């Protein structure tokens, strides 16, 4: 049995457990991949878990990482022990405060799950670009290489900061270490208590700012003294490395685990050494061992203490025999002499040589290279390529490894056949979907193996970019001895595919070793499984001599009543086939874990999951494998052959999981990416899709409006267009007066639908004779996929409606317009995307979107595909994400540019009026904009005519106007983001942008939590809702952003809920867009973090409105100018008790489960808040302003003329 002092946990938990127990205050803010550390700290504090000093740490969520750093700074100055956790942009936001922490010699530790800083693109994955951006602050920096170290060096950092007074940045690789689950030896409270220098803690307290011993910090100093005073701290930084070494020594004494600041591994007489930080160290060490065994003389120097960088100690750690040093940096500094670690190494060697501390006679050659940016794999083969490179006479500096750079030719060749370590543990790879529980089951399996054996176990999990139907790949390793393998499993002895259809989309068997066991979850009898496989899979099975087993796990799960959660069923099958633990023991442990995990979730949950486990093995069958592949069916192409060249060449490779193989030349160098590509990604993830019955439909178009994925659409068209329609293509005659004699069709996109069912739920049309039957009915995808796909292809090529022919842009009319936001990867039932889709229908062909980081930037801009689309004229939304915090300012910048360029075009037009031969044309082009669709069409016609007339003119002004003429058609600038942006991190910027007169439109998709990072509380979280960082219910009500904004007077403000009052939303978006100044629309957006089935999202929105929780209003300064009350409460609340609304959502209900009295208090408070809110709005709605009301800035942007 494993020692009781071990646990199988991830790197975040390993670090957080130490940070929590050695801190009294933690100021936190969510950011991937460090969020878990803050969440755990908050969770432990909520449970009342004490630190080693016997107090429960105070954990406070701030409005940004900048805020968290400020709070930590204050707490430290106040004498408490404080810590924080962050990554990437979050760490960058802390930098100003970090200088202060260092300057004031304030002991503390920041724990960083190191992540890429956004450059040409955002990336949530790991590299060192964030921590490297802090090296100038003077923080001590300590880098961990694995989960065990994430715990141990966290402790050493806390020890050393107290004794040295230098604040520490402790970092480990985001995802690779932060999210890897591994078995580690735990540090007990007693260990931490014994290791911390309590005198240093007292000394820290003694430095606290207190009126009992008044001092002043943060003075402003002048040239006479600043410099000397800055140098006065030198001794602390000089002594810091010693403090680290001393902490490491004491740590070793206590635990037996010895760490070194500069840790050499390899041949003591090596001639080639690679210097590295982070998890790649293990890969290099394993490869060095292999090479040494072959007689090569190589070694690896792992840098743990990066700042202060101790030249002498570093040099001393190198073998004197070293001739060539390769320094691997996991970051990129364009324009630098070398990447930062490399620069440090070169400088350190030079220094060591200058002071005579260098052990070698001939100065070694140093070359630097980059690897692993944004979590790019660093495999043994790549490590071997680096060692091989260093063997060259004059190895290239500034190389890259892990990519194919066919543009600047810096990349090293990699021999992919290089074998992984011969002592490799047993490995398994599992393909699943996010919703089927595969990852959860594998995490559980790893824990079972960790607990049941004395051996070592490791799990790492890869997710795709989608939030619905996401593919997950689990990489598991286990073996009798401790190992570190910080890279994905290559070819495993066990491969499982938990979703049969993935075999058509992904090359699952590229992970299968010859003779491996293949486990399939197949919705067929075992004797049919072979025939259902595509030829390529059959061939691979035959070639690799795989042993195939299959189970219809979905049927077993359905019978057991666990829905689509096939996790435990597949888990039992794995244990049965993989022979990693006696099956009986594995079953007992799985059952025990089910009881433990679900005990508090009720007997029925436990019973059903146990029933699933019981039933599994009886349904597991061997699949006979013939001698040769015989399928007629081939794997379908990743994208249709009609897709554009870029999609075929680049996007398709990414979709097929071959993005790693794309060379540098495949990519635009500045992050520019084509839109309109989601249409080529056909995922077919829905179990059931809606099918339209024209005999029942009343043509309300509500289905199309509410669909989060634009996967159900309406078109009105001339009957003649049906000449080539597929057989049975459903249609009905258009019933309105606006398109007499035309036909109408509602069509589902079966491969793009997520099966959320919202369309059916909101469909009001029922069969008169059988009201159970609606105009839309969910039907199993398998039954209708082929037919509906053919129909959808035909439907798409039907002509789009003439935008100018829509007489009324209401719910019905708007949904005849082409959506230019389609098939995003948002969650099934997402409450945000219907607003965005509507936005693109109303203004898509002239829309610029500045999108704050968050869910909307992930489903909006996360590759491989982009949901923002183009119309047949090639127009569509232009979209950009700058950052999380600066989106309002960024969007304002877009507006300013549009205004400047529009002004320039108008000025040029004035100047060229005579030459373009037509006063009427110029006058019409410059006439005030009524912005109707007809006017827009005519204006575009006039622009085309202007260009035609400008073309022959040789004047520079004419060419310039030719380029700028499109700006004579107004652009619609929208600033889009979630509540985390608008209420918290970006509020300052948003407030400022709203205070200006410029014509920007802000759409806040308010899910009332930080949805993207997993549901942490924001200032939009309502009173009494449980959210991460407010797990026992938020104690104060949400900020009334609308009310705050409308006090400016010149800002159009509205609150909408599309599921409650769709017509209101459609109208308000148009009013907001038409308002010539700033507009703010706050949109209620149901989210999975609310804890209910989102098929009921619209119903719950109605309850929110009826109870007064979410008032629907708009404040239009133009009304005030007309002497009318500018605030209109559009839908008055009815008498629905707020508690009735609250009890429908798990986020509120779980508070009642934990603490019924608190819930009652919150429900009462929420009721009072709703009453107060309604009263306030109704009061304001009665106010008329005597003069033309709005603030001076409420006029439109000044005309540049």
């Amino acid at each position: 049995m494993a020692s009781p002092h071990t646990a199988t946990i991830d790197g975040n938990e390993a670090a957080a457990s130490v940070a929590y127990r050695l801190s009294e205050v933690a100021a936190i803010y969510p950011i991937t991949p460090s969020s878990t550390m803050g969440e755990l700290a908050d969770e432990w504090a909520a449970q009342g878990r004490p630190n080693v000093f016997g107090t429960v740490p105070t954990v406070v969520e701030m409005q940004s990482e900048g805020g968290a750093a400020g709070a930590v700074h204050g707490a430290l100055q106040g004498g408490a022990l404080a810590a924080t956790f962050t990554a990437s942009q979050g760490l960058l936001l802390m930098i100003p405060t970090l200088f202060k922490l260092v300057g004031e010699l304030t002991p503390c530790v920041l724990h960083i799950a190191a992540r890429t800083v956004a450059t040409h693109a955002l990336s949530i994955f790991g590299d060192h670009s964030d921590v490297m951006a802090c090296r100038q602050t003077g923080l001590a920096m300590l880098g961990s290489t694995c989960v065990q170290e994430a715990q141990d060096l966290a402790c050493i950092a806390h020890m050393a900061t107290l004794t040295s007074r230098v604040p520490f940045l402790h970092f480990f690789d985001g995802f690779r270490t932060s999210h890897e689950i591994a078995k580690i030896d735990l540090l007990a409270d007693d260990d931490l208590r014994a290791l911390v220098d309590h005198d240093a803690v007292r000394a820290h307290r003694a430095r606290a700012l207190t009126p009992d011993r008044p001092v002043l910090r943060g003075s402003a100093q002048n040239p006479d003294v600043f410099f000397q005073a800055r140098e006065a701290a030198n001794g602390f930084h000089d002594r810091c490395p010693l403090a680290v070494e001393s902490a490491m020594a004491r740590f070793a004494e206590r635990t037996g685990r010895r760490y070194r600041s500069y840790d050499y591994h390899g041949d003591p007489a090596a001639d080639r050494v690679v210097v590295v930080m982070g998890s790649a160290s293990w890969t290099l060490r394993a490869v060095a061992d292999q090479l040494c065994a072959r007689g090569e003389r190589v070694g690896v120097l792992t840098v743990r203490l990066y700042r202060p960088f101790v030249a002498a100690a570093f040099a001393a750690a190198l073998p004197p025999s070293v001739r060539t040093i390769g320094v691997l940096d996991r970051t990129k500094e364009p324009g630098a002499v070398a990447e930062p670690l490399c620069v440090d190494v070169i400088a350190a060697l030079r220094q060591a040589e200058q002071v005579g501390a260098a052990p070698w006679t001939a100065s070694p050659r140093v070359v630097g290279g980059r690897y692993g940016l944004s979590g790019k794999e660093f495999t043994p083969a790549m490590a071997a390529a680096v060692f091989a490179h260093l063997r060259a006479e004059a190895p290239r500096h500034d190389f890259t490894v892990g990519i194919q750079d066919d543009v600047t030719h810096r990349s090293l060749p990699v021999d992919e056949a290089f074998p992984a370590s011969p002592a490799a543990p047993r490995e398994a790879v599992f393909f699943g979907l996010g919703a089927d529980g595969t990852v959860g089951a594998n995490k559980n399996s790893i824990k079972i193996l960790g607990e049941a054996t004395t051996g070592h176990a490791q799990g790492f999990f890869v997710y795709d970019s989608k939030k619905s139907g996401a593919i997950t790949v689990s990489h598991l390793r286990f073996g009798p001895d401790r190992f570190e393998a910080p890279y994905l499993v290559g070819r495993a002895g066990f491969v499982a595919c938990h979703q049969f259809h993935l075999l058509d989309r992904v090359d699952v068997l590229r992970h299968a070793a010859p003779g491996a066991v293949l486990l399939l979850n197949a919705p067929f009898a075992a004797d049919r499984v072979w025939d259902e496989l595509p030829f390529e899979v059959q061939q691979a099975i035959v070639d690799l001599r795989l042993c195939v087993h299959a189970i219809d796990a979905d049927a077993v799960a359905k019978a057991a009543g666990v829905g689509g959660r096939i996790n435990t069923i597949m888990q039992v099958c794995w244990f049965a086939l993989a022979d990693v633990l006696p099956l009986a023991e594995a079953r007992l442990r799985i059952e025990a874990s089910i009881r433990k995990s679900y005990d508090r979730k009720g007997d029925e949950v436990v019973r059903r999951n146990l029933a699933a486990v019981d039933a599994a093995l009886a349904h597991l069958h061997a699949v006979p494998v013939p001698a040769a592949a015989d399928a007629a069916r081939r794997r379908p192409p990743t994208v249709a052959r009609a897709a554009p060249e870029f999609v075929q060449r680049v996007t398709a490779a990414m979709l097929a999981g071959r993005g790693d193989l794309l060379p540098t030349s495949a990519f635009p160098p500045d992050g520019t990416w084509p839109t309109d590509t989601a249409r080529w990604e056909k995922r077919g993830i829905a179990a059931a899709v809606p099918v339209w019955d024209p005999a029942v439909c009343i043509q309300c178009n509500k289905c199309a409006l509410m669909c989060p994925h634009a996967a159900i659409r309406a078109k009105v068209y001339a009957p003649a267009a049906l000449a080539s329609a597929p057989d049975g293509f459903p249609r009905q005659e258009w019933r309105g007066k606006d398109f007499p004699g035309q036909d109408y069709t509602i069509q589902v996109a079966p491969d793009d639908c997520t099966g959320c069912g919202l369309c059916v739920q909101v469909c009001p049309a029922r069969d008169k004779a059988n009201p159970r039957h609606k105009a839309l009915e969910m039907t199993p995808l398998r039954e209708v996929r082929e037919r509906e796909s053919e129909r959808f292809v035909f439907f798409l090529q039907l002509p789009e409606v003439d935008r100018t022919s829509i007489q009324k842009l209401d719910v019905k009319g708007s949904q005849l317009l082409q959506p230019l936001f389609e098939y995003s990867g948002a969650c099934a039932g997402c409450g945000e995307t219907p607003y965005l889709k509507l936005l693109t229908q109303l203004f898509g062909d002239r829309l610029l979107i500045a999108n704050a980081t968050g869910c909307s930037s992930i489903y909006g801009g996360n590759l491989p595909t982009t949901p923002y689309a183009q119309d047949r004229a090639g127009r569509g939304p232009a979209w950009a994400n700058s950052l999380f915090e600066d989106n309002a300012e960024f969007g304002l910048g877009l507006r300013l540019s549009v205004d400047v360029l529009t002004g320039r075009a108008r000025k040029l037009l004035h100047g060229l009026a005579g030459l373009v031969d037509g006063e009427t044309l110029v006058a019409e082009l410059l006439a005030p904009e009524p912005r109707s669709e007809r006017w827009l069409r005519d204006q575009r016609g006039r622009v085309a005519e202007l260009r035609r007339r400008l073309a022959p003119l040789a004047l520079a002004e004419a060419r310039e106007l030719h380029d700028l003429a499109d700006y004579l058609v107004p652009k619609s600038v929208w600033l889009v983001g979630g509540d985390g942006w608008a209420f918290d991190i970006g509020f300052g910027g948003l407030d400022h942008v709203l205070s200006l007169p410029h014509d920007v439109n802000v759409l806040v998709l308010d899910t009332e939590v930080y949805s993207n990072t997993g549901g942490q509380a924001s200032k939009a979280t309502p009173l009494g809702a449980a959210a991460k960082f407010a797990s026992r219910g938020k104690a104060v009500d949400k900020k009334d952003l609308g009310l705050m904004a409308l006090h400016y007077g010149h800002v159009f403000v509205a609150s909408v809920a599309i599921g409650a009052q769709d017509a209101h939303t459609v109208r308000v978006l148009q009013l907001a867009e038409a308002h010539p100044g700033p507009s703010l629309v706050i949109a209620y957006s149901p989210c999975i973090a609310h804890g209910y089935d989102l098929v009921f999202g619209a119903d719950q929105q109605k309850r929110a409105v009826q109870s007064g929780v979410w008032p629907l209003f708009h404040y239009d300064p133009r009304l005030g100018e007309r002497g009318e009350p500018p605030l209109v409460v559009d839908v008055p609340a009815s008498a629905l008790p707020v508690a009735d609304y609250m009890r429908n959502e798990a986020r509120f209900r779980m508070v009642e489960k934990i603490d019924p009295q608190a819930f009652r208090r919150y429900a009462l408070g929420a009721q009072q808040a709703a009453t107060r809110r309604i009263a306030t709005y109704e009061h304001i709605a009665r106010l008329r302003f005597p003069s033309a009301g709005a603030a001076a800035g409420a006029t439109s942007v000044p005309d540049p003329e």
Partner: protein
Amino acid sequence: MDLSTDYLGLSLPHPFVAGASPLGDSVERCRRLEAAGVAAIVLRSLFEEQVEQEALAHHQAEVGHADMHGEALSYLPASPDQVFGPEEYLAHVRAVKRAVAVPVIASLNACTPDGWIDYARAIDAAGADALELNFYAVATDAGESGAELEDRAIGVVQSVRRAVRLPIAVKLSPFYTSLPNLALRLESAGADGLVLFNRFFEPDVDVEALELRPRLDWSDSGELLLWLRWLSLLSSQVRGSLAASGGVHTVVDAVKAVMCGAHVVQLVAALLRGGVGRLQQLTHGLAAWLEEHGYRSLRQMRGSMDRSRAPDPRALERVQYMRLLQTYRLE
């Protein structure tokens, strides 16, 4: 005036009990009921199906989105304090028991044989003074006979009786073929009393939306007649307690129910509409009425109009109804 009565072996100072309703939903409300002089409090039912459905729904909300995306391994906070199952109800029973001295009667509607037994045991352990088994089911299965349905009810009572020691009442709907026969069988199976009757949510039809809308209307005095008939018919035939639940709004309503055999009357609509102050009015009113009409005690009056003692018991039988109709004359 002696208004005391016995119900399920509990000695009560008067027959006015707060019936299962929002009245007992919070400790504070229970305290107010006690202060207003209620004789006993019946808590709302613990519904096994609801408990399970919520646990499953919550489980789905929690795990259905777990480990789906690299940025978020979950979307709801982990709360080890949160326990699904009957605990919330049991905690409420315990809290009410701690808060008030009057008897607290829990109520249970389970949907599985194990559910009846396990939850009844848990309620017993939570300290309830008695348990109402709320047979709240509508017979919808054409394959199940009336006899089978009744046998199932009997089986439940037998097994709960074996499992718990606290007094058991069975709350029935009026829709049984032979209520007296069922009542006797329930009594033999271990029921200490009967509660007449359950009120079902009734489906209404929304003719615009073409949807069924369940609704529950509070009773009024006009409905009392149904209660009186069955109280009277059962009172002379069963040994256990009888509670009239529904239709009692006035002093005279209460008098009628007791005359027909009720040991207690459970008030819901009367208290929800009239406030808990109504309890005192009814108690005082009942005492005054008895006084005025020369009764010595409530016990003297109880059952005086049941089938065995009513002057013309044929009025309780169906044929009498026919005769009345036949003799009805237009003025």
